């Protein structure tokens, strides 16, 4: 049987960004900030880097479901959750590209490789683990520690400590909660009007 492609726009189907996407953006920021603050307060390693940050699951999954709206939410909410957890403003600014990439990479992978967010096959699981758990967090961590080092907040020698803290602290929650969220909620989300088959709608 042929696999259903959730990204395919059917003939006659009109998709336009609207107020539902604005609402999703705002609400994802809220959920992400709450989830992110929980993590940031659990094992803080300093500068908003934590040993366990569930917010990253919202970044990856939100981007897969809601396209660039999810990416925007994932880009913005860590700024709020880091601030609430006590990270200085300009450190939060420095993390913005990391947070952008952590959402954008899984979105690109799911769209271009036509992976199913409902995780219906091994290919979907592997795709999520590679792009939503490993690659996005490694790239995000690489940017973050480079930025911290450039600002002069960490030494070159302590880069591996912070890099591994970020990668593991994001990787584990995005693996556990990301898969749970995709498995539990994707069947509902793909039928919801907020689901983005394209970039914005």
């Amino acid at each position, binding site marked *: 049987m042929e696999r259903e492609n959730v990204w395919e726009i059917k003939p006659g189907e009109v998709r336009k960004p609207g*107020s*539902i996407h604005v609402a*999703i953006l705002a609400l994802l*920021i809220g959920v992400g900030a709450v989830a992110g603050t929980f993590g940031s*307060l659990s094992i803080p390693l300093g500068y908003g880097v934590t040993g366990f940050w569930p917010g990253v699951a919202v970044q990856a999954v939100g981007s897969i479901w809601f396209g660039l709206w999810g990416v925007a939410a994932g880009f913005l909410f860590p700024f709020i959750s880091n601030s609430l*957890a006590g990270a200085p*403003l300009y450190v939060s600014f420095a993390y913005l590209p990391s947070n952008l990439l952590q959402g954008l990479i899984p979105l690109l992978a799911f769209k271009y490789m036509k992976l199913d967010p409902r995780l219906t096959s091994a290919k979907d699981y592997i795709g999520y683990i590679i792009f939503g758990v490993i690659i996005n967090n490694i790239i995000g961590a690489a940017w973050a520690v480079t930025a911290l080092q450039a600002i002069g907040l960490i030494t070159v020698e302590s880069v591996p400590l912070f890099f591994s803290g970020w990668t593991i602290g994001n990787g584990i929650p995005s693996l556990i909660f990301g898969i*749970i*969220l995709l498995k539990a909620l994707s069947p509902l989300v793909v039928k919801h009007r907020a689901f983005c088959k394209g970039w914005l709608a």
Partner: protein
Amino acid sequence: MGKMKRSLLGYLPEESPIFMLHPLTRLLFLLVVSAYPMLVEIPELNVIGILFMFAIFKYGKVDLGIIKNYKLAFINLFFVLAIAYTFFGGYRPEYRVLVELGPIKICWENLRWAMMVYIRLIFAILIIIFFLSTTRERDVVVGLRSLRVPFSLCYMTGLALRSIGLSLIDFNTIREAEKARALDLSALPFSEKVKKFGLYIVPLIALAIRRSDEVSNALDSRGFKLTGLKTEGRTDYVTSKYRFSTRDYVLIVLMIVFLVGIILVNWRYGLFNAENSLLFRV
């Protein structure tokens, strides 16, 4: 106790002098003053900054108990910095070794750097705590509107900040529901907390998705569209409630003059570099 106004982090007495300032002044305080500890490396000046922040906490009648909520974050940061700089701080032949623990050399230069970074961060964190303790969602929106940020972006910002409160309420509702089913996350060890957190995050997102329909309908019924308001020339109600005073102009000019001064002096003479600190003479 007099009347209190809610802020992003707690409550602030209505008679607080902070409310005499325009929200834009408070927003610029965050954006401009936060740059000081990033540009100034000298710990003595950052200590003055910390004392200044405590003074304005006091002057603004901000409950200092809010800072206590960050006690763990401050302690953690201290230990992380101490470990990062003592064990991962690196070694150069010119460094003064204080203690040798096998292959690890604890050097004065690394400890000094850790102290300087810690003091800078405390100053920067106090600035953000002050902002969050004295600002409401509405103030952020008014501040952005005053900066001529497009209406739809300001509206989205306000909605996003409000949704944090809604998500917190949802989070607490879910927590109570889980408690009623004999699951208390706070009583569990960390590994169990991690395993069980899925029971919180799934309903939290499900509720957010369900609420998105209500919010979307509310936005449509209020005439919101991505490019702005559907009816042109509508009064921007929230901004009409605030007025800029001489006090605001003076403060904004002072903050910007200080920032430009720091940048210029540092760029021209490197006066605020760590090498000019008293710690470097030890």
